[in-house]
C-alpha cells in the first residue's frame, strides 16, 4: 500500500473514531443557518429568497472551521518530515489530504443541506440545485483551503489567519453556487452556474496541489 493511500486510510479511521472532528463543523453549519431567521426575519416568503445564499455561507464557514486542523497534527508529530523523506509525491499527498477533508466536511454538509433547506423554506425546485452545487462546490473549498492550511500549519493561532487568506479566494465559488440555487428557485436555468463550478473544480484539482506541496515544504525550514 502506498504512503498516500495509507495516509488517507489513517485519516478516515481517525475521523471515524473521533466523531467530533466531523460532527462539530456539521453542528456549526446548522447553528449558523438557524441564526438568520432569528436575526433577520422568519417570514417564509423572505426566507425562501435568501435560503440558498444562507446555506452556502454557513457551509463555507463550516468548511473553514474544520480546515485549521488539516495539517496541524502532521506537522506537530513529524509525519510531514516522514512524507518528505519518503520521496513520495507531495502533489498526490496534498490531493489525498484534500480528498479526506472533503469526505469529512463537504460530503456531510452536502447530505445535511436539504434538512436546512426545509427549515429555511427553500423553494421545492431548488433542492437539486442546492445538492449539486454543494457536491461540486465544496471540493473546491477543500482544495483551496488545503493550500491555506498548509501555509499556516506551523503558525501559532493560524486559524484566524487561515480565514483571512482563504475567504477572498472562496468568493467565485460562493457567487456561482448561490446564484445556481437562487435561479433554480425562481424557475430559471441553472446549468450554466453548475458548469462554471465544474470548471473551477477541474482547475483547482490540477493546480492547488502544486501550491499545497510548495507550502508544505515551508514547514520544514523552521
Amino acid at each position, binding site marked *: 500500500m502506498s504512503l498516500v493511500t495509507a495516509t488517507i486510510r489513517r485519516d478516515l479511521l481517525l475521523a471515524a473514531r473521533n466523531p467530533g472532528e466531523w460532527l462539530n463543523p456539521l453542528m456549526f453549519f446548522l447553528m449558523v443557518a438557524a441564526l438568520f431567521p432569528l436575526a433577520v426575519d422568519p417570514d417564509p416568503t423572505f426566507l425562501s429568497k435568501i435560503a440558498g445564499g444562507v446555506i452556502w455561507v454557513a457551509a463555507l464557514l463550516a468548511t473553514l472551521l474544520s480546515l485549521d486542523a488539516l495539517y496541524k497534527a502532521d506537522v506537530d508529530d513529524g509525519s510531514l518530515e516522514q512524507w518528505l523523506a519518503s520521496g513520495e509525491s507531495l502533489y498526490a499527498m496534498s490531493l489525498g489530504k484534500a480528498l479526506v477533508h472533503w469526505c469529512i466536511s463537504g460530503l456531510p454538509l452536502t447530505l445535511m443541506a436539504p434538512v436546512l433547506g426545509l427549515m429555511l423554506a427553500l423553494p421545492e425546485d431548488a433542492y437539486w440545485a442546492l445538492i449539486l452545487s454543494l457536491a461540486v462546490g465544496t471540493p473546491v473549498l477543500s482544495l*483551496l483551503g488545503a493550500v491555506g492550511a498548509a501555509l499556516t500549519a506551523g503558525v501559532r493561532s493560524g486559524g484566524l489567519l487561515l480565514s483571512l487568506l482563504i475567504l477572498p479566494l472562496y468568493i467565485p465559488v460562493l457567487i456561482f453556487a448561490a446564484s445556481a440555487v437562487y435561479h433554480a428557485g425562481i424557475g430559471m436555468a441553472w446549468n450554466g452556474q453548475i458548469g462554471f463550478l465544474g470548471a473551477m473544480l477541474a482547475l483547482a484539482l490540477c*493546480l492547488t496541489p502544486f501550491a499545497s506541496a*510548495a507550502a508544505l515544504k515551508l514547514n520544514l525550514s523552521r
Partner: protein
Amino acid sequence: MSDALCFGGGVKTQLIAVVVMWQWLKQLYHRLGSPKWFYEITTGWIPWLAVLSVVGTVVGLVMGLLYAPADYLQGNSFRIIYIHVPAALLAQSAFMMMAVAGAVYLIWRMKMAAWVAKVIAPVGASFCLIALLTGAIWGKPTWGTWWVWDARLTSMLLLLFLYFGVMALQQAMESEDSAYRAGAILSLVGLVNIPIIKYSVEWWNTLHQPATLKLTEKPSMHPDMLIPLLIMIVTTYVFFALLIILRTRNEILWHERKRSWVKQILES
C-alpha cells in the same frame, strides 16, 4: 541560390542577435541578484525619478483639474478620475509584480526578488485603498451613494483583502525565509484567482461605467481629457518605481548591514 544564401545569412544574424540578447538578459539577471550592484546603480536614479514624479504630478493635475473640459454628464466631479484610474491600474499591476517577484524567489532563491516582493505589498495595498476611497467619493455625486455592491468595486475590495492576506501571512511567519516563500505562494494563488474573481463578480453585478481606457480600442475620451490622464498614469508608475526602489534599498541596507560596503556607506 543567392536568395537562399541571403536568407541563410539573415537567419544567422538573427540567431546571433538572439544569443547576444539572451546573454545580456542573463547578465542583467545575475547583476540584479546582487544587492550591491542594485544599490549602486539606483543611487543615481533617485533624483531623476523624484523630479519626474513631482513634475508629472503637477503638470497632470494642473492640466486635468484646470484645463480639461468638464464632462457633459458628470460635470466637474469626473476630475477625480485623474487620481482614481491611475491608482486602480497600479494596484492591479503591483499585485502582478509582487507575484512575479515571489515566483523568482521561489524558483531561483534570489534574495533581491524576495525583498522587492515584500516591499511591494504595502505600497500596492495603499494604492488599492486610494482607488477604493476615491471611487467612493466619486460614487457619491454620480450614483448618489458612497458604496454599491458593483462588480468592479467588489473586485477591488477583494484585491485589497488579498493584499491584506499576503501581508498578514508574512508577518505571522517566524523565519524570514518562510515568510517570503509563504507570501510568494499566496500571491501566486491570488494571481490565478484574480481573473476568476474579476469575471465572476462582473457577471454577478455591474453598475460601474465600462473601462475608460482599453489597449485594444480607440479611446472614447476627448484628447483634452485623455492626455492628462495618460500623464497621471505614467507619473504614478514612476512614483511607484521610486517608492519600491527606496524601500528595497532600505531592505538591502538592513540585510547587508554586516557587509563592509554597507558599513562604508553608513560611515561616510
